[in-house]
Each structure stands twice: as C-alpha cells, then as structure tokens.
C-alpha cells in the first residue's frame, strides 16, 4: 500500500493535468496550486483541491517555496510533485520538503546535488566507464583559462552552465576568435538565470543525434531502462519533436547504450525516474552529456511504446516501493512521435501571447493529447508557453508519421500564433520522413537557430 495519500502538484499546465490523471488511477488525492492569474485554469478545476499561492510572476507563485509548503501544510498533502522545470531539480527545495516531512517526488537529495553540478556528474559517470565528450570537466570562471582549455579540446566547442537545466547559457563557438565574446555573454546569461556564473566547455558534436534513455531505479540499486527517445529536433537547445524508438538504433546498440545508461545511473546511486542523455554520431559512437533528474516533457513517447506509466513508477519509487519491472519485461511496441505545440510566433519564433479563441485537440485511435488548454484561456508572459503535446502511436514509423499528419491537420488552435504549422512542415519534410535528421535540422525552417 502506498504511504502517499495526497499529492500537492507544484506546477501547472499539461503536466499538472498529467499528474492528476495518474494520481486518480492510483487513488491518491490531488492539490493544485495556482497564481492569481490562473484561478480558472483547468488543472485547478480538475484537482480535488486548489490553493492560490501568489501573483502571476512565477518567482512569486510557482517558485515561492514558503507558500508552496504552506499550501501543503494547510491541505495535509504528504507529498509534492514538482513536475518538470520550476523546482523539479532544486536540491534546496527537496531538502525543505524533506525537513517538513513531505515526500519530494523525485530522486534523492544527493542525486539532485550531484546532478546540479554538471562537471562533477560528468566526471563520476566517466570514471564508471561511460564515454563522455572531450571537454573540461570542472567549473571554469576565468575566461583566459577557458579559452586555453577550449583550444585543447578543439573547436567547435559548446559552452554551458555548470549548474541549472534547460538551454540557458548554451553557446556554440566555432572559432577561437569568437570564444571570449561568447564566453562573457554566456556567463552573464547564466548568472542572471541561476545566480552561479560557472561554465563548462566541451567538444561540440556537429550533426549528431540527441538520444536519451529513460531510467527507472530504486534505492536498492535495481534499475531498468525503457528504451530510448530521439530528441534531435531542437531549436535553441529546446526540444520540439521527439520519437521513440530512435531511427538510427539497432537492438545491439540499444542493449549497449541502455547498459551504459544504467551504469551511469548506478555510478551516482540514482534512485527514481531519470533520463540519461547521449549524443550519437553518424558512426554509431555515443557520448554521455548529462542526466535529467526529473520526469521529462517527452516521457509520453516512452509510455506509448512500452505501456509503462512513468509518472506512476515515479510516485511508487518516491514512496520507497521497490522497482517491480524487470528489464526482460520491457518490450517496445510500435513507434511514437510527440509534437510540442508552443505559443510561438511562426516567423520570429519568439513567444506569442493571446487568448485561446477556438481549440479542438485531435482525437481518434492512436492519438494522445496532453494539454490543459481551454477556450478563453489567456496566454501571457507568465503562462507556460507549452500549450499542448500531441502524441501519435502506430505500428511503424511511417504509420506514426501518417497518423501525426492527420492529427496536426485536424487540430484547431486559434487566438494566438503557435508552432502548429512548423510541425506540419516538419512532418512533410522528406529528410524527416527518411529519418535523416541532425541537430541542425530545424534551421531550414528559418528563424534564429
């Protein structure tokens, strides 16, 4: 029997609704939180209870730890699900939850602390025998030192934040002469975002695929992987469209990379749901990039091909239950694609705003929608720009592509610009259809890369 009886969901939008669904199936009560601007949001309407926790800016609401914990306290929630983004990878938040006797639905405090230090995580994983990209595994704060190190690694290089998640601070530098400017910009960006200006530098692998493995692990060291996701189609290091399985994968390579992913997780004593991210080059060589210590936006493609409810596993593992799935139970069936529908200007690709005037999510067989969008919902700078995820599942990749095309053609979303047409273009692109995608793929559709 689970100990968790009531979960406070410290996020909003599609993922809050996603978590509500699984909690309901598990018989767990749910508490939604919202800002004053989102009292009418669907996650608030559909949760068992709701608490308003602050004004619209996320820093004062969804990121406000005292009010989140106050809400957990007054509603008697015994666990907090942080979703993705926001506080999901904050060791500090997990620690406060722990101190208040509230289960943080995520990995251990030690896991979060280690993963928050990308250089250190890279080092630990490398020592366990998992290949990593050539790079400087420690925090660098001095620009001259960084340039020397980068020259040793060999250009092009990627500059990224030593802490924090997402695409913030990421800069590709192709020539030594451009390095110092890029370094200073990245440092400023990262300092503003995370309050920590340390960066790390590694080889930038051009035209590689981004392939990640979904991991489930318990505190007793049992671990399985649920196969891979291909997330190569990105813009500004933000994923746009994901698939499972990866088109370039073979059963032998999957077994090897899956093993490596489990090895990486074991090296850091990882417990809970996590994702081990790799670059896979054209020659079939793969390199560990980092490990995501949370549920990921793209987890549904894994659920479609494996039949495993990743959020349910996450809650059970956080509840201290042993992992019930064995590697030999995991079978991949068919092909799944996810399209992330963002509030985004179709020309500039910048965030767009407006009020949802008309909305029809696609339906039918093999089509899954994750969205909390409603007609009349305002989409403001404080809203989550991820409006909906459309997932198509079919027996083969061509059939999944055909199904997704039909779904995107059926989808209606009026009232603000979105990237729906971009997805329609991607699904019609001959290279995409043939599976010839690399990280530069999206640049052909215009806008800043």
């Amino acid at each position, binding site marked *: 029997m689970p100990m968790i009886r009531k979960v406070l969901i410290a996020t909003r939008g599609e993922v809050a609704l996603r978590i509500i669904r699984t909690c309901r199936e598990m018989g767990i009560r749910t*508490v939604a939180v919202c800002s*004053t*601007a989102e*009292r*009418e949001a669907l996650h608030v*309407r*559909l*949760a*068992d*209870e*709701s*608490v*308003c*926790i*602050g*004004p*619209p*800016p*996320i*820093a*004062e*609401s969804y990121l406000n730890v*005292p*009010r989140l*914990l*106050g*809400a957990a*306290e*007054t*509603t008697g929630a015994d666990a907090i699900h942080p979703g993705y983004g926001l506080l999901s990878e904050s060791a500090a938040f997990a620690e406060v939850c722990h101190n*208040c006797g509230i289960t943080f639905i995520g990995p251990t405090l030690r896991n979060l602390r280690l993963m928050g230090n990308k250089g250190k995580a890279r080092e630990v994983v490398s020592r366990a025998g998992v290949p990593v990209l050539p790079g400087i595994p420690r925090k660098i704060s001095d620009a001259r030192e960084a340039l020397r190190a980068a020259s040793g690694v060999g250009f092009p290089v990627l500059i990224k934040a030593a802490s924090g998640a997402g695409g913030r601070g990421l800069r590709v530098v192709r020539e030594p002469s451009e390095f110092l400017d890029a370094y200073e910009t990245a440092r*400023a960006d990262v300092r*503003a975002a995370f309050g920590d200006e340390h960066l790390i530098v590694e080889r930038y692998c051009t035209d590689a695929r981004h392939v990640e493995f979904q991991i489930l692990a318990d505190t007793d060291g049992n671990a399985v992987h649920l196969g891979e996701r291909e997330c190569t189609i990105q813009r500004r290091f933000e994923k746009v469209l994901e698939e499972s399985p990866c088109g370039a994968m073979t059963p032998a390579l999957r077994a090897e990379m899956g093993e490596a992913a489990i090895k990486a997780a074991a090296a850091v004593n990882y417990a809970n749901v996590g994702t081990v991210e790799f670059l896979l080059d054209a020659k079939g060589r793969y390199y560990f990039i980092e490990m995501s210590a949370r549920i990921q936006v793209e987890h549904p493609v894994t659920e479609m091909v494996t039949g495993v409810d990743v959020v349910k596993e996450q809650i059970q593992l956080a509840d201290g239950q042993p992992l019930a799935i064995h590697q030999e139970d995991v079978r991949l069936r068919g092909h799944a694609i996810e399209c992330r529908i963002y509030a985004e200007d179709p020309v500039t690709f910048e965030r767009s*705003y407006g009020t949802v005037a008309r909305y029809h999510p696609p339906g039918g067989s093999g089509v899954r929608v994750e969205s909390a969008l409603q007609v009349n919902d*305002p989409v*403001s*700078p*404080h809203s989550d720009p991820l409006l909906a995820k459309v997932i198509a599942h079919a027996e083969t990749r061509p059939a999944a592509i055909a199904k997704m095309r039909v779904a995107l053609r059926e989808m209606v979303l009026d009232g603000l610009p979105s990237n729906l047409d971009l997805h329609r273009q991607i699904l019609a692109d001959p290279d995409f259809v043939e599976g010839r995608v690399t990280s530069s793929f999206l640049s052909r559709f215009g806008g800043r890369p």
Partner: protein
Amino acid sequence: MTDREITDLIRFLIQTDVREFRLEREGEKLEIVRSLPSGAAEATPAPVAYRMPEPAMPVRSDPGSRELSTSDEEYRAISSPLVGTFFRCPAPGKPPFVEVGSVVESGATLCIVESMKVMNEIESDVKGRVAKILVEDGQPVEYGQHLFLVEPIL
C-alpha cells in the same frame, strides 16, 4: 546607466508584475512598457458557471464576499499575503485581536496567519472600523484571500 544595467533591470522587471517603468536621471530618460494584461481585467474575471467535478476546497473565500469587497468602495479588504491558517487570537485562550466594530489604527494587528510553524501578524493598512470578518478562526487561507473588510475612517 550602462546597457548592462538596463538589461539587468529588464531581466528583473519581467519577473515582477510591473507593467510600466519610467526613469529620469542625470539627463537620461528611460521608459519601459511591458505587455502584461491590465490588473483591472484580471481582477474581475467574467462570472463563469462552471460545474466542478469535485467540491472546491474550503480554503477559498466565497466569491460573494470577494465581490462585495471589490465592488463596494466603502470598504477596504485586508487580504492574506501568504498561505496558512487563520487565527483571530494571539494565543489559545486569549481574546481576539479585533471584533466586528473594533476601531483599528493603520498598522494594528488584525490576526495571525500561521505558516510552517511561523506566526505571521497581519496588519491593517488603514485606520478604520472592522466591518466584517470573512474567515472562521482556525481555517486555512490562500494567497490573496480576503480576511477582513475595514471601513476607513478619515
């Protein structure tokens, strides 16, 4: 201001609910207008007859009182700046800070909202007469929930 200071300022502003910012200093003039929805629009959402699948939690003040307080200019609403439990008395067995009819100075403590074991005193931001107490003693309150209506005394 250097460019850097300006971009830092904007980075800060977009985390707040400031909509317009104007500064004149040492011959410089800076104006920044954000595209936030206006406060008025947010404060008065159209009444929606939504059928809840589940009863809403009691934490919320009832919409009736909210309407009264915002529409009726005679009263000023004192709302909760945090999420916690509402207490009318400084300690169990002690008399309440205020009753309906009490006249309070600006800055006077009206109640306590306890959050994470911390007793937060909530003060009146106006001199006036307590017209209505909107929450029962010991009840949970959410952010922005109206706790009291105070009739200002000029």
